[in-house]
C-alpha cells in the first residue's frame, strides 16, 4: 500500500513502525542516552527508537525537543524516520537539525507497530509493502437524533460479533456514495434514505489489510429495519453510547467526522 505524504525533512528510510496514538515530547518522553521511549501513555515504553519509523499524531511540550532529537540522531540511537499527522515546529526543527527524514499529513490509523514502512520524504510518499488496501463504505443512518448500529454476524469477513455502521466493500471504480446507498438497501431494507453528508476517508487496520473507510450519513424517515445475513442485531443509539459498545476500530471517529468534521 502506498500513501501520499508531505515532506517535512528530506531523506528516505526503511524500518519497522513504532506507533504512539498520543502526541509525543522528546524531552522527558525519550531516554537521551539509551534512545528508548520513556512515556508510558504512548503504549511503547521501553521500545528502542533506533531503526524505527516513529509515528505519532504530533509533537508537544518543550521547544528543547528539537535539540533532543538532534542528540539522539547524532548518537545513532534516534528514529530512522518520523511520521506525524500534523507536524509542528518543535519536531520539524529537530528532524531537520538531526537529518532525520520526516513526513506528515498521513493517517496513523493505517499503521500498526511492527509494520515494515518505507518513508520517502523526497517523493512525498510512504509505502507499507506488506499491507493491502481495501476501500470500504461505512454509512450511519440517522432518525430523530439516533444512529443505527449493527452487530456483525459470524459469516462476514472481518470484525465478527462487533458493532458497526452499515458497511461494505467498494468494487472497482464505483462511486462510494452509490455503494453506501446499495448497502443500506441490502443490509436494512430501510426506505427513503436521504444522503446528508460524506466525510474524508480514514484508515483502520485488520491484520495485513488496511481498510480505507469512506464515511457517510443518511437520514431515514422511520426506524424500521430488516436485517440480512451480514448482521445479528441492531440498535438505535445516541452518539455518546457508541463508546460503551464493542465496536469496530475507529467507528467513533467516523461518526465524529460526520457530525463535526
Amino acid at each position, binding site marked *: 500500500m502506498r500513501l501520499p505524504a*508531505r*515532506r*517535512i525533512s528530506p531523506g528516505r528510510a526503511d524500518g519497522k513502525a513504532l506507533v504512539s496514538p498520543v502526541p509525543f515530547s522528546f524531552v522527558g518522553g525519550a531516554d537521551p542516552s539509551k534512545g528508548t521511549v520513556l512515556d508510558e501513555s504512548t503504549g511503547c515504553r521501553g521500545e528502542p527508537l533506533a531503526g524505527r519509523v516513529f509515528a505519532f499524531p504530533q509533537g508537544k511540550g518543550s521547544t*528543547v525537543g*528539537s535539540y533532543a532529537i538532534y*542528540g539522539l540522531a547524532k548518537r545513532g540511537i534516534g528514529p530512522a524516520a518520523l511520521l506525524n499527522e500534523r507536524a509542528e515546529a518543535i519536531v520539524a526543527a529537530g528532524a531537520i537539525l538531526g537529518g532525520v527524514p520526516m513526513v506528515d499529513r498521513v493517517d496513523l490509523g493505517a499503521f500498526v507497530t511492527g509494520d515494515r514502512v518505507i518513508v520517502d520524504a523526497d517523493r512525498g510518499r510512504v509505502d507499507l509493502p506488506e499491507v493491502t488496501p481495501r476501500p470500504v463504505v461505512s454509512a450511519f443512518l440517522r432518525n430523530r437524533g439516533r444512529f443505527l448500529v449493527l452487530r456483525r454476524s459470524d459469516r462476514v469477513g472481518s470484525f465478527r460479533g462487533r458493532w458497526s455502521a452499515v458497511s461494505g466493500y467498494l468494487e472497482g471504480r464505483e462511486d462510494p456514495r452509490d455503494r453506501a446507498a446499495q448497502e443500506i438497501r441490502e443490509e436494512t431494507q430501510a426506505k427513503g434514505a436521504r444522503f446528508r453528508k460524506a466525510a474524508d476517508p480514514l484508515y483502520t487496520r485488520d491484520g495485513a489489510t488496511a481498510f480505507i473507510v469512506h464515511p457517510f450519513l443518511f437520514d431515514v424517515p422511520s426506524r424500521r429495519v430488516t436485517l440480512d445475513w451480514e448482521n445479528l442485531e441492531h440498535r438505535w443509539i445516541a452518539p455518546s453510547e457508541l463508546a460503551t459498545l464493542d465496536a469496530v476500530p475507529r467507528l467513533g471517529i467516523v461518526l465524529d467526522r460526520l457530525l463535526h468534521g
Partner: protein
Amino acid sequence: MRLTPKQARLGREGSAAQRKALQLLVALGDLYEAERLVPVTSAHVSGASYKLIGDAGVEFLEDFAKDARVAVPTTVNPLGTDLQQWRELGIPEAFAEHQARVARAYEAMGARPVYSCTPYLLGVRPGLGEHVAWSESNAVCFANSVLGARTNREGGPSALAAAIVGATPDYGLHRDAGRQPTIVFDVRTKLEGIGFSLLGLLAGKDTGDGLPYFRGFRASEEDLKWLGAAVASSGSVGMFHLERVTPEWRRARTRGLPKVVVTARDLKEVQKHYTDGEEADLIALGSPQLSGDELRAIAALVDRSPPRIPVWVFTSRAVREACPGAVASIERCGGRVLADTCLEVTLLEHRFHTVATPSGKGAYYLPSLCGQKVILDDIETLLERYA
C-alpha cells in the same frame, strides 16, 4: 515556497550550517504555508539557559558553532545563572561550566554577548513595519505590540536559523491579516502595579493562540512590558492592541469579536489563583529583566524598608553596570542584583521553596520551571510584609 536566487544559492553552496538553517526555514515555511522568506534586521534567540536546554542543547550549539555565523545583529536570551556571581549563589560548578560553554558557543557564532529577555531595552528597537525574527515570548509581544515591528513567536532553533540566513518565513504576524484581533477586553478598573500582569494572565488564558484587543486604560511602555510578558505566558499570544496607545490600534477591526469585561474583582481572582505559597523565602524581581528606572525605583524602596528575606533582582549586564548606586543599595541589605540571567530560567530551586514576586510571567512559570510555590503581589506590599 519560492526562494530568491541568492537564497537558493545559499542552500546549495553555503556552509553546512547555512544549508541546514535554510532547510529549517523552508520546512517551517512550508509547514505554515508561507510563500517566501522575508529579510530580517535582527534576531533574538532563546535557548541559552543550561537549566532548560540541558546537555542536548549544549551539544547542538557547540556542534553548530563550528561553522555557523550570524548574518544579522543577534541577541541571546538569559543564561541559567550570572556567570560572574555563580559561586556566591551556591550554583554547582558543573552547572556553571556547562553554562559558560553555551555562552561561548553563541559568542563564537557572532551573537552579541548580551543575555537578556529585554533586547528592546538595550537599543534593539526595530521600527514600525520592520521584520525581525525573535524568540522569547515577552520580547516578541513587545516588538509587535509596542514597537509595531513584525515577528512570529519563534522557537530557539528557528530564530537561530533566521539569524544565520538573515530571513524568516513570511506568515502569521509578518502579514497584515495575521495582526488582526480575535477578542476584545473591556477593562473597567484602574490598573496600577501588578494590575498589568494580572490583566495579562487573565487575557492570555481567554485568548489562547489568538490576538487580544484591550481598551479602557492608558499605559506606559513599562506597563506594556509587564502586560505583554504575562499575556504571552498564559496564552500563545505574540501581539496585542491597546486602544489609543499601541501603534496599530486604528487598523484593528473589532466588530463582531467576542468581548470580555474585566473588573477589579476579576483581577483579584487571578491574583488569588496564582498565589499558592504562604511564607516566602525569596523576593524576586524580574521576568522580564528590569529597566534602569525600575532598578533604581526598587533600590529606593529596599533602602527605605530593608526586607528580612533575600531579594534577588534580575536585570541586564548593561543596566547593572549603569546603576552602581542602586546595586550598592540593594546589596547593602543582603540583596543581589543578577545580570545575564532571569527569574524562572535561573537555578534557584537548590535553595528556595516559595518565591514572592510582582511578575505575572514569573508567577506563571515558577511552579513548573523551578518547583516553587508563589506569592504574587505588589513590591510595596511584599516589602512591607517582609520588613
